[in-house]
Each structure stands twice: as C-alpha cells, then as structure tokens.
C-alpha cells in the first residue's frame, strides 16, 4: 500500500503538468456524434441480457410488472397493452407497435417520442440498444 501510495503521489503532479501543457497522457475519446448511425450495429442477445439487467432491471422484469410493465412478449406488442398494468394515457393512445425500429427510437428518447410518458430513461449507446432489442426479441419468441 505504501508503494502504491507513493507512486500515486508522484504520478499526480506529473499528470497535472502534462495536462497543463496540453500533453495528455492518452487521447480523449471522440465526442459522441449527434447523428446516430444510419443502420444499427450487429446485435448480440447475450450481451443484451447483461445490459438489460444492468440498465433496465431497476424498473423492469421479464415476467413481473414492477415500476414498468413486464417485458416478455414486448416485441411486436402494441404499446400500453399489458392487461394488468396501468399506463399513461399518452402511451396507451400512441398506437405504437414495438418493432425494432420503434424500440430503438423509444430507447433513445422516450419523452421525445411520447410526451407525457412516465419513462425518462435513455439508453444512448447504439450498440447497447441493438443488443437489448435483440434480447427482447429473443425473449418474445420472435
């Protein structure tokens, strides 16, 4: 621990000096593009399962209505149609059917797609969206 601590204290001023002179130790990642790619990246349902648990699992489950409605069978389903879940009128009357394209749009900005919805969570990474959609499609038996 002492060695790590000493190394850290030595490294910090060096890093600070490098930044002050505009010499970054590693290049910063490019800023996210304002324009999503024209076609979604190849999707992977296994990765999607992990993303689903980490980023959707606070509010959703496949087989239980919780903060949000259950998701098994969501792919191809009409929005606002789980019988034992109460939706906002805005989503219920939206007429949306959960296709891959609509799910992708929804996950990018639910409030923008359906103003008045209770879901505000945005999944901004295109790869994660594609993977989650693939997972939901798989779990819907499609």
């Amino acid at each position: 621990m002492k060695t790590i601590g000493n190394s850290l204290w030595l490294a910090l001023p060096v890093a600070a000096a490098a930044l002050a002179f505009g010499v970054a130790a590693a290049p910063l990642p490019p800023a996210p593009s304002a324009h999503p790619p024209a076609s979604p990246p190849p999707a992977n349902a296994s990765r999607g399962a992990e993303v689903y648990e980490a980023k959707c699992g606070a509010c959703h489950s496949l087989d239980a209505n919780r903060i949000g409605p259950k998701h098994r069978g969501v792919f191809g389903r009409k929005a606002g149609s789980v019988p034992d879940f109460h939706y906002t009128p805005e989503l219920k009357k939206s007429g949306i059917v959960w296709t891959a394209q609509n799910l992708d749009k929804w996950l990018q900005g639910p409030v923008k797609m359906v103003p008045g919805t209770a879901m505000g969570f945005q999944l901004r990474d295109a790869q994660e969206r594609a993977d989650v959609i693939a997972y939901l499609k798989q779990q819907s038996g499609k």
Partner: protein
Amino acid sequence: MIEDMKSRRSLLIGSATTLSVAGLGVVLGSAALPTAARAATGNAAQDIQLLNAALGLEHEGIAAYQLGAESKLLKPEVLKVAVTFQSHHKQHRDDLIAAINKLGGKPVVAKSEADYAKELNASSLKSQADVLHLALKLEKGATNAYLGVIPSLGNPDLYLFAARVASDESFHAAFLGSALGEPIPEKAPMFG
C-alpha cells in the same frame, strides 16, 4: 418502459405549473447551482411523471431492504448496514415526495409488502448472499436509472438531484459488491 402509476395509484397531476427553479433548488438542497443553470425551467407535468417513476423505484428499494431485514437471513452486522442503506432510500423518497408536491403533483404511494415480495421473487431468497445479490442488482440498476433519466428532465435542479441520488446508489452497490467478493470492474465508466 416505465409506465404509469398515474391511474393505478390515483396520480393527480396538478396544472402544469412551472415551479421556479430556485424554489425547487431549496427543496432539493441544491441552492448552490450556478446562476446560468437557474435560467431555464422545464415542463413540470413531465418532470412529475419522471419523479414519480423514481419514487416508485425508491418505494421498491425500501421494501426490498425490509424484506431482507425480516428474512432472518442477515447476520447482525449485515442487518445494520441494510437498515442504514434503507434509511438512505427513505431520505430519497422523502426528497422526491417534497419535490413532486412542490411541482403540484401527487406522489405515488407504495404498494403492499406482499406485492413487492411477489414482484421481487422474495420466496427465492434462501441465504444472506441471495439477499445481498438482490440488493446489489437493484442498487446497480437504480444508479443507471437515475443517470439515464437526467437527459429527459426539464428542470436543471433535478439534474443535480438525480446525480446525487445516483451517487448514493453507486456507493451502496460498491459496498455490496465488496461484501460479496465481486471483482472491481476493469472498465470505466462503470455506470450510465
């Protein structure tokens, strides 16, 4: 796809009153926001919906810790931590209720403990580790949920509020992960 507790729990949103940002800042304890950030106001009715979804999340978190505490599966020192974490969620709940009331909305009420037990599959909890894994899953998810909702919020005071709560949840997740012996994530950022 968080959807509505509005009709189910008799959510009666008041008129889409736009609360002064400074006023909400006082409610949320964020009076130190920069002046520029105070200039904009959001769509109060939309924010009420999103805050109520967050409140539903906190209700569930409180219930999850309650189920764990009553399970008799936790050792005394772990139970003490669980009760402390639950108290943090109660603080979040109270802050959310205050903010929703201030915006003119009606806070959603918690479901019954039996409902939460069913939704969280509490009958599957057979050991202390099971309880901690459930708590960890919910805390990780809550961290991501709060971070992921920030871009949808209209009122700048709420950005900071959501970030602060997300930080609390990530603290809980880190502690629980450590207690369970989970490895430190190799990649950053870990959330969001």
